[in-house]
C-alpha cells in the first residue's frame, strides 16, 4: 500500500477518483447484469469484478501470499503459481485512470497504457499497489516504454517477446522464462520445483479444460449465451485464482448443459452473429460488447487477448522433465498466439476464418484502441481476407471515455442493419420476445 503522507488536496483528488471510478464500474456492471440471459451461476464473476472495481478490494488470498501483476497473456501464470504467488492481470479499461494517465503519458499513447500509468500515479487501487512484482512482456512500443516508466516506480521484470515463431525464437523465449523464474523465486522466496510447476499446470489446466468445455457448448447451440457475459467471465479470470475460476466455470457449464437439453437460448430471434476482434476489451471498458447486444446483435465470439485467445490454448508437455515443462509453457505462450506483436501474423487470419465457420459469424467488428498501431496495421489484410468470404467488417476506433458512445452506437446499429438486410426476412414462429 502507498504509505506516503498525502496532502488534503491529494486526498480529495483520490477520493474523487475512487468515487468516479467505482461509479463507472458499477454502471457497466449493472448494464451487464441487466442484459437478459445471464446464467445464474455467473454471479461470482460479477462479484469479483464488483469487489475489484467498485469496492476497491484486492484479490482474495491467504496471508503471506504475494501477488504478481502481469500485463499480457504471454507471461505464463503457471510459473507465478509455481512460485507460490498469485497472478493478476493489470491491463485496465478504467476511464477514470485513463483521464489521470492522459496527463502522464504522451497524447498518442494507447488508452490501456494511460490507464495503467493513471493507476500507478494515483495509488488507490490495492490491486496495483500490493503487487510484489510486475511482469511486462514487451509486445509493442507502448508496453516497451511503459516498462521504463514503471521500472522507476516499482519492481518490474520484462519479457522479450520474439518477433517470429521459429525454433530459435522459441529457444530464446525459453531462456527468457528461466530468467523470469529466477526473478520470481527471488521475489517470493520460494523455490520452483518440478512438483510445484506440475501442480500449477494442473491448476491452470483445469481452468483451461473447463474453458474448452464451455467453448464446445457455446459452439453447439447458437444464441446459448451473450458475448458480453462471456467478456465479464473472461475479465473476472484476471482477478481469480485459476482453480477457483475453473470451479465457477464448471457450474456455468452445468447450467449451460441444462439449457441445451431444454433448447433454451437467450433469444428466439435470429439476431446477427458478430465476431469481435482487435484491441483487448477490458472491464470496465465494455461499451462495445454492450452496444452490440443492446443494438440487437449477438456477440457470438471474440478474438481478443482478454477473451478466448488468452486462455483457450492448453499447455502440452511432450517431454516430462522440468525443462520440458518450461518449453511447453514457452510454446503455448507464443506458437498459437495470434497477437500482432509477431511480424508475420497470417495465423490470425486462419484463426478468424476458423471462428467464422465455427460460430456461424455474419459480421466482424474490428476494434482498434486509439494509438494501438499494431492492430491497425493488420486491419487491411483482415478486411481483404474476410471480403473474399463475403463477411462484412467494420473498423471501430475507440478510446477510454464515453464521449464516443453515441457515434459508436450509430455505426454498430448501421452495421447490424446491414447484416440483417442480407438475411432473408425473419418468420416469427413464437410469441413476441420482448427481451431478446
Amino acid at each position, binding site marked *: 500500500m502507498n504509505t506516503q503522507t498525502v496532502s488534503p488536496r491529494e486526498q480529495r483528488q483520490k477520493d474523487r477518483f475512487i468515487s468516479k471510478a467505482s461509479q463507472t464500474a458499477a454502471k457497466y456492471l449493472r448494464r451487464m447484469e441487466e442484459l437478459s440471459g445471464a446464467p445464474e451461476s455467473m454471479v461470482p464473476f460479477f462479484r469479483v469484478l464488483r469487489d475489484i472495481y467498485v469496492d476497491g478490494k484486492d484479490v482474495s488470498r491467504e496471508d503471506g501470499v504475494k501477488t504478481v501483476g502481469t500485463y499480457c497473456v504471454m507471461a505464463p501464470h503457471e510459473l507465478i503459481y509455481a512460485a507460490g504467488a498469485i497472478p493478476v492481470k493489470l491491463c485496465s479499461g478504467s476511464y477514470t485512470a485513463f483521464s489521470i494517465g492522459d496527463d502522464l503519458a504522451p497524447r498518442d499513447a494507447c488508452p490501456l497504457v494511460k490507464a495503467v500509468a493513471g493507476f500507478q500515479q494515483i495509488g488507490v487501487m490495492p490491486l496495483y499497489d500490493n503487487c510484489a512484482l510486475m511482469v511486462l512482456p514487451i509486445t509493442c512500443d507502448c508496453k516497451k516504454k511503459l516498462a521504463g516508466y514503471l521500472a522507476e516506480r516499482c519492481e518490474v521484470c520484462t519479457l522479450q517477446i520474439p*518477433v517470429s515463431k521459429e525454433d530459435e525464437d522459441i529457444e530464446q523465449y525459453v531462456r527468457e522464462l528461466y530468467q523470469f523464474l529466477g526473478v520470481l523465486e527471488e521475489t517470493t522466496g520460494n523455490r520452483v520445483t518440478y512438483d510445484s510447476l506440475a501442480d500449477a499446470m494442473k491448476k491452470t489446466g483445469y481452468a483451461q479444460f473447463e474453458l474448452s468445455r464451455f467453448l464446445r457448448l457455446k459452439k453447439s447451440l447458437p444464441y446459448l449465451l451473450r458475448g458480453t457475459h462471456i467478456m465479464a467471465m473472461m475479465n473476472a479470470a484476471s482477478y481469480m485464482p485459476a482453480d477457483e475460476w475453473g470451479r465457477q466455470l464448471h457450474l456455468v457449464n452445468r447450467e449451460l448443459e441444462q439449457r441445451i437439453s431444454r433448447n433454451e437460448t437467450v433469444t428466439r430471434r435470429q439476431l446477427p452473429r458478430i465476431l469481435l476482434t482487435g484491441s483487448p476489451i477490458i472491464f470496465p471498458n465494455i461499451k462495445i460488447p454492450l452496444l452490440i447486444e443492446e443494438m440487437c446483435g449477438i456477440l457470438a465470439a471474440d478474438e481478443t487477448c482478454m477473451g478466448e485467445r488468452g486462455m483457450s490454448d492448453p499447455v502440452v508437455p511432450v517431454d516430462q522433465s522440468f525443462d520440458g515443462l518450461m518449453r511447453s509453457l514457452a510454446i503455448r505462450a507464443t506458437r498459437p498466439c495470434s497477437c500482432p506483436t509477431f511480424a508475420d501474423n497470417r495465423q490470425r487470419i486462419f484463426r478468424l476464418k476458423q471462428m467464422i465457420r465455427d460460430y456461424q459469424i455474419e459480421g466482424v467488428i474490428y476494434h482498434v484502441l486509439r494509438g494501438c498501431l499494431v492492430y491497425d496495421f493488420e486491419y487491411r489484410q483482415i478486411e481483404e481476407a474476410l471480403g473474399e468470404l463475403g463477411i462484412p467488417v467494420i473498423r471501430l476506433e475507440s478510446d477510454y471515455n464515453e464521449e464516443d458512445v453515441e457515434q459508436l452506437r450509430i455505426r454498430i446499429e448501421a452495421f447490424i442493419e446491414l447484416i440483417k438486410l442480407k438475411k432473408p426476412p425473419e418468420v416469427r414462429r413464437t410469441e413476441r420476445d420482448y427481451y431478446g
Partner: protein
Amino acid sequence: MPERMTMSYESEIRDTLDRIGRENGHIRSFSYFTACAWQWFDPEQRKTVKPAVAVLGPGVPGELILAAGAAPYYILGGSLKSGAWSEDLVPRDTDPVSRSVLGFLQDPEGPDYSGTLFIVPVTSDSMRKTAYLLREQGRNVHIVDVPPQRSDFFAREKWQAQMIAMTEAVSRHTRTRVTAARVRSAIETADCAAKALREFLSASCGREDLITGGARLLVQNSYYYTGDLSRWTAELRRLNEELRSRRKRFVPGGGSRPGILLMGSPVYFPNYKIPFLIQDIGLNVLRNIDVTTLKDQIRPVLPGKRRSRDTLIRMAADRWYDQDGSPAYAANDALYRSVVRCLKQDRIEGVVYHVLKGQIEYDFELERLEALFDRYGIPVFRLETDYQYQDVEQLRIRMEAFSEMLHQNRYREERMAQ
C-alpha cells in the same frame, strides 16, 4: 506512378539541395555530398539500382553487411511524396518515416528489388509490421530483433546472436564467405568513417558561418546514401581539411545566435524543414542528437589480428548496442548519456525536441530528458510535426517565441554577470 507525383517528388529533393547548395556554394569539397544524396533520390538513377541488401532504417551496424559482401542500401525515408505512395498500406497514425520507407519500396519505377535481401531491425511497431507487409509481398526479409531491455543480463548475448544470424543471412544471400579478415577490414572502414565524422562535427560545431546546419545534416545523412564508404570517408576528410583551414582564416560569425541542441525524431533528407526553420529564425544548431548521429560516438574496437571471425562480429555488435540511440529500448540510456555529454561540452542554451507524429517513443523519452534539462536550467521546446509543409508558419511563430525567450535569457544572464 503519375507524372505529377514524380515531379513533386523531384522538386522536394531539388528544393532542399538547391537551398543547401546556395548557402554553402563557397565550400569546394561539399559537392560530393549533394551528389551523393541526389544520386540516391534521383528517379532516373534509382531505376538502374539493383541493391543486394537493403536496410530499413539505420538500426544495424553496416560494417557487418559490408563484411558479408554487400554495400548496405539504406532506406531511411524522409520524403513526403514517397509517404504518399504507401498511403493505402498503412494505418492513419503511422509515423511519416515508416510511411516514407514503405513508399520507397512501393515505387514501381524505383530500384529493382527482385534480388534484394531486406534487413528489418524491429525498432518500432511500424517496422515490425512493415516486415510483415514485405513478407506478404513475397520479399526476402531478415528480421533483426532488438533486445529492448539493456539491463537484461543476456541482452548483449541476444544481440550478438542476432548480429551473427544477420551476417550469415547476408553471406548466404551474397554467396560470400565471411572471414575474420573481411570483418576486420569492414570494421576498419567503418571506424575511419566514424572518425572522419567526429572530426567533421568538431570542425563545424557552432560555425554556421562556415557550413550551415542543413549542410551539416546532409553530410551526416549522406553516410547512408553512399555506396562506397571508403570514398565517402576520403571526401569527408577533404571537407574537414577545408573547414579547418577556413576556421583558421575566418573569425567566427553569428556568435550572437543562441546555441541549441536539436534532438528527438531523426531529421532525414530531403525533409529539412525544421533545420531550415531554425536557421531562418536565427538560432544556431550546435549539436543534433538522434538515432543516426550517435554513429560518431562509436569507438574503434582495435580488431587484433588473432581474433576470430565471430569474436570480431561480437565486438562490432557490442559497440553498436552500447551506442545505439534508437527508441527500441525501454530506457534509452545511450541517447541520455550522449545528451549529458553534450550539455557538459557545449554551451547549449535551449533544446528543440523534435517529435514526428506517430513516433510516440520519443514522446515517452521526453519526460526523463526534461528532468535532465531542468537540472541544467535549459528550456525545452517540444515541436510536433510530420512531413507536410502546411504547418511551417505555425512552427515558425512558436519557434520565434522560443528564440525570443532564449535571447531574453541570454540578456538576463549578461546583466547578472555585470
